[in-house]
């Protein structure tokens, strides 16, 4: 069930309506049923994977809590890791590694004939697996008390607003919210929740979905498209993926807020970043902080000298790339960002300005350079294969003959880009994702009117699934 579907609107309305009449435990029960309906709408068979993760991690957490033996605690953690990563590895990476091994052996002249399994990738598996792993790791580290409320824990794993595409919440942040009584819904909560949903729908329907056909068409013809068309398509995809994913996160946060939950911010105007380090502090924050806390720091972080730090950055980013998809193009995307970060760490100089400070005119060159580095990396992220990525890059690098200016693409990319800049600047200046609420009332009306009409204009076309569902 996609957020931009009528079914989701009905589900949210029903849950919201019931919710106000119930007490905490019944509210959690309603949320659990709604979450399973939400997930089962896609494929009910894979609910069993959710149940396995839930029961295993709940049991592991409880046993860990009652055990004082460090060895036993470690073994329990290993059980949780094995189950979660085993599920993830089988469903997401089995085919990838089998194919890669076969290709490698064939390159060496060895004919390999592996049985090929056609494994369906359960939607959102990378998100909920990482979320539930954070629980057992935090309990193991004694940063979190294990839960003895299976219902609350099950909702924490399956909470529908963020189940299939995040934000990847930490147990120590979200789980206590299920254990506590919900705060009373105020007018401000209602307005801000609805506004987040509204902005998210705008980003998804008007920015991401409107650009998707142009991007698809151009990448499909990457070998013959002229450089101007390719360039506009790369910009378009940069906006598409941002609109798609941050739109999803915004709807998730808005939906959760209506139900009395506070989900973490997942995007903080990343395209206003002045350097690549800032970009990673503002792009898919829930994943980048997860990787930082559970991979980069355990590897040694920046505590073991420059070379080890660079290695740790590269390992983290390569695995981060692989998290996104079982394909070498994602690994290259991660590697490219790792390289950017390593180079930036080497040459950066201190600044007392935070990444959340509003940009100045003097920041424009740095923002543009950062954006273009990121946009370049998106070529690998978007391409179906290395050959396609190569076609795009060579077309750009050699200024392949263009038939003319791609007005059709530009007519979509320019307004979409301006809309993104407008929303991000308002959010950055007000330091609030609901910053539009701080505009004068008439100006708010103008903006909401424009967004509403844009959603009317672009809605009702074929529903384009959220890009991050595949991860």
């Amino acid at each position, binding site marked *: 069930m996609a957020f931009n579907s009528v079914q989701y609107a009905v589900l949210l309305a029903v849950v919201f309506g019931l919710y106000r009449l119930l007490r905490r435990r019944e509210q959690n029960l309603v949320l659990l049923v709604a979450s399973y309906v939400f997930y089962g709408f896609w494929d009910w068979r894979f609910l069993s994977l959710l149940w396995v993760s839930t029961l295993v991690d709940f049991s592991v957490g409880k046993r860990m809590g009652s055990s004082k033996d460090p060895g036993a605690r470690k073994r329990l953690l290993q059980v949780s890791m094995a189950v979660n990563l085993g599920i993830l590895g089988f469903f997401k990476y089995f085919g990838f590694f089998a194919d890669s091994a076969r290709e490698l052996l064939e390159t060496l002249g060895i004919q390999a004939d592996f049985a090929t399994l056609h494994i369906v990738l359960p939607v959102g598996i990378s998100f909920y697996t990482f979320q539930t792993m954070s629980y057992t790791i935090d309990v193991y580290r004694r940063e979190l008390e294990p839960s003895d409320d299976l219902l609350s824990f099950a909702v924490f794993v399956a909470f529908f607003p963020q189940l299939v595409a995040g934000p990847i919440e930490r147990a120590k942040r979200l789980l206590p919210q299920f254990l506590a009584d919900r705060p009373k819904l105020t007018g401000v909560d209602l307005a801000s929740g609805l506004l987040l949903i509204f902005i998210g729908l705008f980003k998804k329907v008007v920015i991401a979905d409107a650009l998707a056909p142009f991007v698809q068409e151009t990448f499909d013809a990457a070998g013959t498209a002229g450089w101007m068309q390719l360039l506009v398509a790369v910009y378009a995809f940069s906006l598409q993926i941002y609109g798609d994913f941050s739109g999803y996160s915004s709807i998730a946060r808005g939906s959760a807020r209506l139900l009395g939950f506070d989900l973490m911010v997942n995007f903080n105007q990343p395209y206003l970043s002045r350097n690549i380090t800032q970009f990673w502090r503002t792009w898919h924050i829930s994943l980048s902080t997860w990787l930082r806390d559970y991979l980069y720091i355990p590897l040694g972080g920046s505590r073991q000298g420059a070379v080890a730090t660079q290695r740790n950055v590269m390992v983290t980013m390569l695995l981060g790339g692989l998290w996104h998809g079982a394909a070498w193009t994602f690994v290259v995307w991660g590697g490219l960002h790792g390289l950017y970060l390593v180079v930036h760490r080497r040459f950066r100089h201190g600044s007392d300005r935070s990444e959340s400070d509003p940009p100045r005119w003097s920041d424009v060159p740095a923002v543009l350079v950062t954006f273009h580095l990121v946009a370049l990396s998106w070529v690998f992220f978007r391409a179906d294969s290395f050959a396609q990525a190569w076609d795009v890059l060579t077309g750009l690098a050699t200024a392949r003959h263009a038939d003319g200016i791609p007005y059709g693409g530009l007519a979509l990319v320019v307004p979409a880009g301006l809309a993104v800049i407008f929303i991000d600047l308002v959010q950055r200046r007000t330091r609030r994702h609901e910053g539009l609420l701080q505009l004068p009332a008439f100006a708010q009306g103008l903006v909401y009117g424009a967004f509403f009409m844009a959603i009317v204009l*672009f809605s009702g076309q074929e529903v384009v699934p959220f890009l991050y569902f595949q991860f």
Partner: protein
Amino acid sequence: MRRSLILGFLAVVLLLEGGARLLAPHIPGQLLWDNQFTQDKADQIGRAGQVDVVFVGSSVVNAGIDSGFVAEKSRFSSGYNAGIPSTTPSTWRAWSRDLVWPDLCPEVVVIGISIRDYNDANPGISYDLREYLPSAGRLGLYGQFSWASLEQQVGRFSTFVRIRSRLREPENVARYLVWGRTPGWPVTVLTDGGRFQGFDANVYQVPTQAGLDQLAEGAFVDFSVGGNEDRAVRAMIQDAKGLGMRVVVVRMPTLNEELSVVLPDGMADVRAFEEAVDQLGADYNIPVLRYADMDDDPQLFSDLYHLNLFGTELLSRRLGSDLERFFPEPTEHLCGIRPAEPEMANRP
């Protein structure tokens, strides 16, 4: 506070609605069928009323048969060419059941088949039915929901909603306003009888090797007959006969010798196709016409399949004479019967 907000909101909504109302008379209306060509044909059929004879097929039929020339040589004074380009018999069958039989109510149905249409292994045009089946115009015939039909309902009150599918393409809107046409919204030039005239003036050019390679890798990457497309033609014959209509199959002329170069098994594939078409005549006791002497005469063709105006005139007159010979007297048949439900057949 709230009043200012609502005023601002309404200001934008009214401004854009007003703009749409100014714009609407100057751009094409909402597209209800899967493409402009089908839309134009559906509009023509809606206006045509009952006719004596219809011609069903792909672009090969649409360009190659002119009802005016047919009428000159027969008693069939009114005819409509219902051929739609880039389609195969699976789509023709749905199109015929949906619109052609019920609205045009012909006494005689001519089904024109070329080797390209009949190839089950042609991946190049396999999308046609998938595009056609869910089109809003079609679903609307059966009273089924589609976003476009909802748009039409809301569009009674809001022009912005009614023309929004056009407004999503600002480049085409701008071009249309400036030049009165745009490549993104192609205009089809049809005769009153529904024939596409785009091939008329073409003189046959021997295809380049690259063109032949493209054909071999596209339409004829493989070749097989006797599957879905054959079944669709048979179903179409049965549908028409069930309504009391008379059916004729025409094996459309093509440049077989040049085509055989790109067919996987050369002339053997041509013969397999011809046998399959002949079998239709034997199985349903209907005339199967072929104008073999027109095959391989490049002066009659625009390309490997499509006749130019010379070819069209010749074929249509000869077809008219044959129809007159086979069906000298009119017969009773059923009219205006559309199935209760649309058939949502899926091609494997």
